[in-house]
């Protein structure tokens, strides 16, 4: 994809540009807000990586003007400012995501992909944590190339966990996902479902953290 990199720090710009090129992306690098706006107006990009602390016009100003001109270019803010207000401000102004320095290149690339995917509206329907693959259309889960069908509730539970691999969900949260508003929650239902999923997919498929809840591990 074609990337507009807006970064005034030479060292970071160099490093990011190199990494993006290594990942087979086309990169245009500008050093200030004015140049960023003119580049965004004249060329067509897939994503903008925007630093907030820029000379002349800061990142917020660039973002505001970009959105005022109805430019829907996906914007990923890359900044050293980690205050909550800055994040909220950036997202409110129409940024699509937020990465805080120092970051890992792998994370930046993943977030870029996610932002572009969301924009395109074709979020990958198959959910995965790297070892489990869940297809919501067929309720089929594939582990090591072996496909297994899940019941409706088993599917709801695994789906909830796979929305964010590595996240711990409490019993309450899982019950909320599995049962509708008017349905009677059976006690031990969560344990029962997890037991049956583990029987189908292996004991390590869902991990328990004592006192907190359950998760599927995140594999990089």
């Amino acid at each position: 994809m074609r990337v507009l990199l807006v970064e005034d720090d030479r060292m970071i710009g160099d490093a990011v540009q190199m990494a993006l090129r290594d990942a087979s992306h086309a990169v245009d690098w500008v050093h200030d807000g004015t140049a960023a706006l003119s580049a965004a107006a004249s060329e067509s990009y897939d994503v903008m990586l925007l630093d907030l602390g820029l000379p002349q016009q800061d990142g917020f100003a660039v973002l505001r003007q970009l959105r005022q001109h109805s430019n829907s270019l996906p914007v990923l803010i890359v900044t050293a400012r980690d205050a909550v207000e800055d994040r909220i401000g950036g997202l409110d102004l129409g940024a699509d995501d937020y990465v805080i320095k120092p970051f890992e290149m792998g994370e930046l690339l993943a977030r870029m992909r996610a932002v572009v995917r969301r924009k395109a509206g074709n979020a990958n329907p198959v959910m995965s944590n790297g070892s489990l693959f869940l297809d919501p259309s067929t309720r089929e889960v594939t582990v090591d190339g072996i496909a297994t069908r899940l019941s409706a509730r088993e599917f709801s539970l695994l789906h909830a966990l796979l929305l964010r691999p590595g996240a711990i969900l409490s019993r309450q949260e899982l019950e909320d996902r599995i049962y509708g508003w008017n349905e009677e929650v059976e006690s031990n239902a969560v344990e029962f479902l997890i037991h049956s999923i583990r029987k189908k997919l292996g004991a390590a498929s869902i991990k328990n953290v004592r006192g907190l809840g359950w998760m599927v591990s995140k594999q990089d």
Partner: protein
Amino acid sequence: MDGFKTRLSRSLQFRLSLWLSLVILAMAVPAGVYSFYSAFHEANDLQDDQLRQVAALVLSRDLPPATPDRRATGKMKDDESKVIVQILAPAQNAGADDTSLRLPADLPDGIQTVKVGHVPWRLFVKPTASGQRLAVGQQTEVRDEIARDSGLRTVMPFMVLIPILIALVSIMVRGMLHPIARLSQEVDRRDDQDIRPLDEQHVADEIRPLIGSINRLLRRVADNMDAQRRFLADAAHELRSPLTALSLQAENLAATDLSPASKARLLPLRQGLNRSKALLEQLLTLARSQNTGAPQASQVTQVSLQAVLRRVVEDSLPLAQANQIDIGVEADTEVTLAAQEVDIVALIRNLIDNAIRYTPPGGNVEVRLHAQPGLVSIEVEDSGPGIREAERERVFDPFYRVPGSDQDGSGLGLSIVKSIVARLHGKIELRHARSDAPYGLKIIIRLPA
């Protein structure tokens, strides 16, 4: 004596009490002595008058000049107080009564002191109408004793009142200086982050300038601390960009075709960079947590400790699992606290990270959350080596590491915990996980809800 001198030079209260007491004594002693002697003399004069009156009485009534009846006076306890009345005779014929004194016949008329034998007497001699001479007398010692008694009676109030006066002065001085003592107690009770100005309104005019000066100093200290904190935050912030660039360069390098030897050497470089990044984050967290300013109301929410704990454990789980450390949580109900979420996250993250870091592989970490009315407690217990009693104060110092521990943590974790707990007006307690053995660390944090 040295102690006395020190007290004299140091204690205003002691000095004031001492000098006031000395002044009282300096006034009272001469006054007492003067009144003693004037009362003494007055009593003597009075007694002389008495002798004259007795003589006049004897002469006018023509009474027989004799000593008062022995049998009557014998009952008196002090028969030396008697007054003698006798006729001075040239020979000893008049002294047939053995109680009469051997007085020389040639005594002059009037008041005088005469030694009879070895006893001094005060005598009044007056000629009678019949040409004889009448002597009325009393022992000087007796007279003086009476005069002394009367003198002492006038001095008595002084002797009783002086100690009372001195005691009252001491009490009053202490009372007057009480506001100063209270002020110093108030300052002593404060924790070291508390540099609010002292109350200037409810103190005596004489102390107010001092409090004003202290407050100005506190303000300067606060400004200074702010500047230091800002510097720490700014420095850590500024370090972010070069560190980001460095770690990206290292990543880029790792993505190229490297010889196995280069790859092996790149690994510690990247680990070092990661450690620097972690340290930088901790520095920023510490700077933020030491910010004593009251948080904006909009940033304070009801934070669910379970939710925060879940997020923190999600992040630390890979490290814990790599070391086969079992993490467990016990919480009876949903525990919430009105606070800034970022504080609670930093607090719990540092507690859990610390516990995982210092627990040997195969160990376990237990977290307990309890809510009581007005109080929330967070307990983190690990099966590591624990912290010896002697180290328990120092572990809160930034960059302090317990000797012998080989952990590559930032050394800021417990400093951050301490600052945040202080910000939330809570208390920290460190102990061994079990009371019977020096083993494991249990950190108990109590926060007012």
